[in-house]
């Protein structure tokens, strides 16, 4: 069937399934029941599978990890966040976390699919056959996925905090995990994200140190700034200087900044990129 559907069509299917996960969870909550963890997880898992096929086809066509334009970066970030959720999300023992993850996946995939200009230029062989630089890019994007989940956990923390301060425990708030559980999840995700981004930068540094002209200053500065900001947040959290609501707001703001930093990465592409070999209908 992969021969009959384009990569974008597979990715549309994934986006629809992520949206279905949000819808199923929301309807269940609005009707007063608990969210069905298995149903939402199933929708996410199926969406993940379709996205895997779509990104696989794109990767095959571009001759490497599909990170050649903004569309592919958003798709890969969503895929990374979902990968992590599928692997470790169940240990959070919170079915509503699945709804939030589904929401993040749907938002990133729908936005990227809905803006054709993001996918207008497709670059092939952007890593020049160097597996280390490809690993660097894949790990960096994976860490963005982890930071995406961290932003979700932070949003849930702020909602739970608001519910407790405003003394309103009903409705959606009833299904949120406890403040302490969310705080632990945040710290673990931040630690994992910083570790992965550090590894990514380590691989990138080896490549960059051989030929410093290959990486633009803006890309270098913005990437290092994101890494420093997240590492500083982790250090301050461990030292007890950035806590509770302020910590959650910081994680949300940092994720927004991290997404914006992708502009710098996008802007530093090598000139002479080939136009899309084949435009597919949406």
């Amino acid at each position: 069937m992969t021969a009959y559907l384009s990569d974008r069509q597979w990715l549309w299917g994934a986006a629809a399934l992520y949206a279905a996960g949000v819808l199923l969870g929301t309807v269940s909550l609005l009707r007063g029941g608990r969210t069905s963890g298995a149903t939402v997880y199933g929708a996410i898992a199926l969406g993940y599978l379709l996205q895997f096929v779509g990104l696989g086809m794109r990767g095959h066509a571009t001759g490497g990890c599909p990170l050649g334009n903004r569309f592919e970066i958003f798709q890969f970030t969503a895929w990374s966040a979902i990968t992590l959720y599928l692997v470790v999300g169940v240990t959070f023992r919170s079915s509503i976390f699945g709804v939030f993850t589904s929401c993040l996946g749907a938002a990133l995939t729908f936005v990227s699919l809905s803006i054709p200009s993001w996918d207008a230029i497709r670059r092939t062989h952007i890593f020049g056959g160097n597996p280390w630089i490809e690993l660097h890019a894949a790990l960096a994007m994976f860490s963005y996925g982890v930071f995406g989940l961290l932003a979700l956990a932070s949003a849930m923390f702020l909602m739970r905090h608001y519910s407790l301060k405003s003394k309103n425990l009903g409705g959606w708030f009833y299904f949120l995990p406890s403040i302490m559980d969310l705080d632990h999840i945040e710290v673990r995700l931040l630690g994992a994200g910083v570790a992965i981004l550090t590894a990514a930068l380590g691989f990138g540094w080896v490549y960059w140190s051989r030929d410093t002209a290959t990486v633009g200053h803006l890309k270098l500065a913005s990437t290092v700034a994101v890494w420093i900001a997240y590492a500083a947040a982790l250090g301050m959290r461990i030292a007890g200087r950035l806590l509770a609501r302020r910590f959650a707001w910081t994680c949300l703001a940092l994720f927004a900044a991290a997404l914006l930093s992708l502009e710098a990465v996008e802007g530093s592409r090598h000139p002479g990129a080939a136009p899309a070999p084949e435009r597919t209908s949406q």
Partner: protein
Amino acid sequence: MSEPRLFVIGASHHRAPVEVRERLALVSEDGFRADLAAVPGLSEFAVLNTCNRVEIYGVGAGGDTEELVKAAYCARQRFDAAEFERIRHRHAGRDAALHLFEVASGLDSQLLGENEIFGQVKEAYAAAKARGSTGSVLNRVFQKAFQAAKHVRTHTGISAGRVSVSNVAVELASNIFGDLAGARVLVLGTGEIGEGTARAFMSRGAAHLAVAGRNRERATEVAGGLGAGMVDFDERRSRLSDYDIVVCSTAAPGAVLETSAIAEAMGRRPARPLLLIDLAIPRDVEASAADLQNVFLYNLDDLARIAERNRFAREAEIARCRAMLGQRADGLWRQVEPLLRSVAAAGPPGQSAEASRQAAPM
């Protein structure tokens, strides 16, 4: 000869006040089971005996068998039959199954949607099954009742939210700390409401409790009753940082925990939230403490408001639950009717459960 039918007969909190229920409660369930085993025509039975209800579920030859069951119960409890007739409820056929569904779901409970009844029904069924007094009909009906109860608890908000002040306090603590096993609780004051709340925390796994009271003798007594430690009342401010949850219920004329003392304590434990539950009138905790970071302050009015909101939300779910359970009872009844016919075809329902068991091949 009448066909066997499913029935339930009993009395509950709906018509029997607590002083009557005290007399209804079975002291010797085994003795009563032996009485029921000797009732002619009763082929299956199970007894549900809780502080809010006594009910006998059975499969019997008809109205006469049910009258004999009632007589056996009144004789065992030395309860006036005419008085029992006034307070009892009785259902047969599909309505009996639906009643069990509602009981197991907490829909018929005094505290709407409570979970404890589910375990009690399971225990009643397990006891009946272990003694061989259930058969194909009751086995099917009880199993379906458990499935139905799980279904409505999962798909409706009937169990959502606590409806008593002490349980709301525990729910609040769970929303902050998750598992309460590691949470440290300080009870300030030795009033009944504070003690009750402390017990609610213990029932949810809180293992580290301490009591501080202005009356040291009474505080020692309360701490002993709870199996908790003691804290000198005058040290309450300096020891505050050791605790995650503070339940205040003193009769002091003014605040016993000032915002400055709480802020100082939070400075020593900034990463851990502090839940202050102020059940005292006049209030024990200065209201401005609610503005501190990581401090959550709830007074008696706040807890009562949440309890009332939860109760309202639960009541709004009743119609949905009833519709779900009604559908399931209809489905079950389509399966049970042929079973009852096969019971009738297998032999005259003159045999009691005990006799059936004795007649069964070893």
